């Protein structure tokens, strides 16, 4: 009996010890977890201070890398990325990536197997794949501005699956970066390094970091836009100065011919130029061109074109020959998608014979004193876009005999494509009308009539392309 009691007492004692031990262990674990969380929070507060200590001086990409570094550290994530809206506010671009961040959209391509550095390849894929507003999880969070926490991402149909171990997404956390009412982008982290799923605590920390970061990111973004704008403005300024310096300061006085020309540079694209070259006593060269590239590149191309024409005009009375030389010089150095359309004509002021070569430019118009109009066509490809044999094979010149009283007009597409507020183009027919009714009065009359009618049509609608027109009146 005594033994039985003693055994029961012992058992109770042991049970009590076990209970106390377990209780103690549970409390210790809880305490550790709390301490860890506290540590993370303290670490986070420290980090936030670090991130933004000099946020007003660093550039946006630097700032984003830093934000991401602390985001990954705070949430103990294996990888992460920051997506920001592009200036169009429709697409998101991965601006910073940490670790091997698996593509959340678009998957991986076959190039991955061949890639020397797989992580680099994956990073390139993520960086080049733009994500549309509302597209996939990233696009959704950016569109609605609500965070997404997927502790068990493997069961979620919206998460891509990869066979490669280092791309597998087990747990995923996406928070929006908001500033006032505006979503700037999202912060994404994947897979905790300790194998645990992301917790609501991680979400809170990451959102807090994102909220703090958004303020600096917003202002750094403004600075970036401004810097870019200043850079473009400087470039356009330089281009504009080059271009203006290329235009004739004054029109030459040529016996028996009345000349007139206008050039309205547009704010953004363009690069028109025109030139009158006194080749010899009886020959006048007339050039008009439109370069497709904007900025300094276009202006330099234009200046080369002008120099080559001016240099070769005295030796070659054939305009096609001169354009072939321009093409030979320019086709070597021109960037692939840049080209110039050029019209070059040579007028013999004694015989009134006009030779025309057209390299992809608007066709010139001849108006007779009676108001009859002829559009001069001749085959030719724009300069700088085809190989030399093709250019030279296609280009042909035409010769016309002008009569006293004829007016010849050449222009760039900015004139016929001038737009009004209803997005309607002025068009070739209106140009022809304007020429026809004024041509009897001569070159300046044609020019003024075109200018007035066109200005009336476009109103105060801003124009995006240069407008250039020249007129030449063969006097009696």
């Amino acid at each position: 009996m005594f033994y039985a009691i003693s055994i029961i007492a012992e058992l109770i004692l042991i049970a009590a010890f076990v209970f106390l031990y377990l209780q103690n262990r549970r409390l210790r674990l809880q305490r550790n977890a709390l301490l860890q969380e506290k540590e993370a929070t303290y670490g986070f507060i420290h980090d936030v201070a670090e991130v933004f200590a000099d946020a007003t001086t660093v550039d946006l990409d630097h700032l984003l890398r830093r934000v991401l570094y602390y985001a990954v550290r705070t949430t103990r994530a294996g990888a992460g990325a920051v997506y920001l809206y592009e200036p169009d506010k429709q697409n998101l671009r991965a601006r910073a990536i940490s670790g091997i961040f698996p593509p959340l959209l678009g998957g991986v391509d076959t190039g991955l197997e061949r890639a020397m550095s797989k992580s680099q390849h994956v990073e390139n894929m993520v960086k080049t794949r733009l994500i549309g507003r509302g597209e996939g999880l990233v696009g959704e969070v950016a569109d609605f501005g609500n965070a997404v926490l997927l502790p068990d991402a493997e069961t979620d149909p919206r998460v891509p699956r990869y066979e490669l171990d280092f791309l597998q997404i087990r747990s995923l956390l996406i928070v929006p970066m908001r500033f006032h009412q505006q979503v700037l982008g999202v912060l994404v982290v994947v897979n905790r390094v300790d194998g645990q799923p992301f917790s609501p605590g991680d979400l809170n920390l990451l959102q807090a970091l994102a909220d703090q970061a958004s303020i600096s990111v917003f202002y750094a973004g403004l600075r970036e836009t401004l810097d870019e704008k200043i850079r473009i403005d400087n470039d356009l300024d330089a281009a504009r100065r080059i271009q203006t310096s290329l235009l004739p300061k004054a029109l030459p006085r040529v016996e028996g011919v009345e000349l007139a020309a206008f050039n309205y540079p547009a704010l953004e694209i363009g690069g028109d130029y025109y030139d009158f070259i006194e080749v010899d006593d009886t020959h006048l060269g007339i050039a008009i061109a439109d370069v497709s590239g904007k900025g300094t590149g276009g202006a330099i191309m234009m200046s080369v074109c002008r120099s080559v024409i001016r240099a070769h005009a005295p030796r070659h009375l054939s305009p096609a020959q001169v354009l072939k030389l321009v093409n030979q010089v320019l086709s070597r150095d021109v960037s692939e998608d840049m080209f110039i359309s050029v019209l070059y004509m040579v007028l013999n002021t004694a015989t009134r014979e006009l030779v025309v070569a057209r390299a992809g430019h608007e066709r010139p118009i001849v108006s007779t004193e009676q108001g009859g109009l002829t559009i001069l066509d001749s085959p030719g490809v724009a300069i700088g876009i085809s190989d030399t044999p093709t250019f030279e094979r296609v280009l042909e010149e035409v010769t016309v005999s002008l009569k006293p009283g004829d007016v010849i007009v050449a222009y760039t597409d900015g004139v016929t494509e001038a737009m009004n507020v209803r997005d309607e183009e002025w068009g070739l027919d209106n140009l022809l009308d304007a020429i026809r009714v004024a041509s009897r009065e001569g070159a300046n009359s044609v020019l003024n009539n075109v200018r007035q009618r066109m200005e009336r049509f476009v109103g105060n609608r801003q124009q995006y392309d240069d407008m250039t027109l020249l007129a030449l009146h063969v006097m009696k």
Partner: protein
Amino acid sequence: MRECSIQLEEKGDLNILRLDGSLDAYSFPRLESTLGHLQESGKHRVILDCTALEYVSSAALGALIGFARRAREKGGDLKLTNLSPKIYNIVELLGFNKILEVCDTAAEAEAKFGARA
């Protein structure tokens, strides 16, 4: 002007891009990125169906020539079909019809690709 939208159809080893709207300096980057993706993934036989294309800037046309050239280097091509008279006029004015192949219909372009294969 309407933005340009692009619809992609794969037909065997041909890729047909249907363009809708207007193609200028602002909307061209989207087409450029689509063409870039095709080129990167080794798809060099491309037809641009311009039935619903309202406007194309000359700069955008110039950029297409670069894509056509690279496609040809890989044994493919980039052909244009169903150009409106207005757009054909721009292509012809620039002389680009001497460089790019322009077909009346997508079927004609497909047949030409077939004949080359």
